């Protein structure tokens, strides 16, 4: 598995972890999200995808942590199964990663 590394995204030098998550949520910008989406083969981000990304970021900065599963459902008004389908790479590697939130590492 690759280690964390710096790379240039949307004109900025940004540190990513080994799974492609931003190390610092503050390094994120809309341009960064769009470039990461393009790298994932997405032809831009839709209105609904932006709504999800903005909810995730707002929650993170208001609460100091990522939202729990049910908070996401409440916040975005769709089921997680719908959210999984909304992003080609799913919830973790799609929505959460493009939102620039820290990697939600669990005991693996």
């Amino acid at each position: 598995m690759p280690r964390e590394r710096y790379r240039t995204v949307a004109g900025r030098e940004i540190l990513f972890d080994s799974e492609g998550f931003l190390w610092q949520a503050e390094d994120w910008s809309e341009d960064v999200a769009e470039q990461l989406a393009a790298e994932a083969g997405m032809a831009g981000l839709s209105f609904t995808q932006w709504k999800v990304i903005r909810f995730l970021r707002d929650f993170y900065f208001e609460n100091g942590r990522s939202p729990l599963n049910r908070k996401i459902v409440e916040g975005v008004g769709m089921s997680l199964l719908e959210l999984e389908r909304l992003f080609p790479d799913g919830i973790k590697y799609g929505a959460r990663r493009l939102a620039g939130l820290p990697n939600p590492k669990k005991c693996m």
Partner: protein
Amino acid sequence: MEDRLVYLDNSATSFPKPREVLEGMVETYARLGVSPGRGAYDLAGEASEYVAEARAAVAGFFDAPDPERVVFAANATDALNLAIQGLVGPGDHVVSTRLEHNSVLRPLFHLKERGWIEYDLVPFDSHGRVAAGDIDGAIRPNTRLVVLCHGSQVLGTVQPAAEVARVCARRGVPLLLDAAQTAGQVPVDMERLGVSAMAFTGHKALLGPSGSGGLVLAPDLEVRSTRFGGTGIDSHSLRHTQAFPHRLEAGTLNMLGVIGLRLGLDIVLRTGMEGRHRLEMTLIRRLREGLSALPHVTVHSPEPNDDDLPLLICNVEGMIPEDVGAILDADYGIMVRTGLHCAPFVCADLGDCPNGSVRFSLGYRNTEEDVDRALEAMAEIARSV
């Protein structure tokens, strides 16, 4: 989402605990929660007696001859650390398996990294079982310990502990059994199996609280102290007490945990472990059959035997297990474990790295309705692929 939550993560811990355990803990601790064995007052004596009875109950439950060789610990990981670090030393070799939990792999790796020991891990076959002959073949002249995972928390398979114990006895090497998953689920009779040491936790199938567990030793096994401190006896000496169980216990016992462990044991004995296990195995077969019939779902656990564990792992094509677990939780109220299950070599050998799998593990409260809820949810998820 339905209101009632379905808990299918019993291999991690049983939940919720029986009210009898929780209420009994509060009642008994309120009455006896003094420092056992460390005072001249009657209540300290009563607390000591309670702990001694708890040791006897544990020894009886695991068919161990000497209650004094029941050492209380924080959990199975703690007990395994006590045993591994107390049994091996510089220049020694250890044999274990690729089925092991990190509670075994990490202590072994730590000792190897320090340059103390070498170890070999024997493989498991396509049915998820380790062959006693492979362990025999891995034993060297300087092998001082064999460690065996009794029941795999990933595959659900129970290993041939008696066969391995016979090999170990013939080769003169003690066998340490990790019974974290099997204690309270299937019989773990130390004398019948012939194992030298057995580590268990109280908070899984024994229905006790987290923070409870222990190490049970055969009468002839010498384990060095690896932590030191107050025992309530021989306080004039700076040498740690060598009498069991104090040799491996330092500091005030987790009295609340001991109480909960004993209450959980009582329930397991009273309600009948075998009947409960049979029911859970019927349910896991129902789940397995249902999941196996779903498109885009692959069950990785081997077909279970009657004395295996009521759990299975699976994956949904094109979805990472963590997302499947989140969807089951948020959309269907079903709680499962996802990831590598703290057994990195099992997942690597199954080809499940780096994301692992979704694990469903059943427990004493689960019903056919719970299984059917899980199947309906997984069917909807699979249909979305």
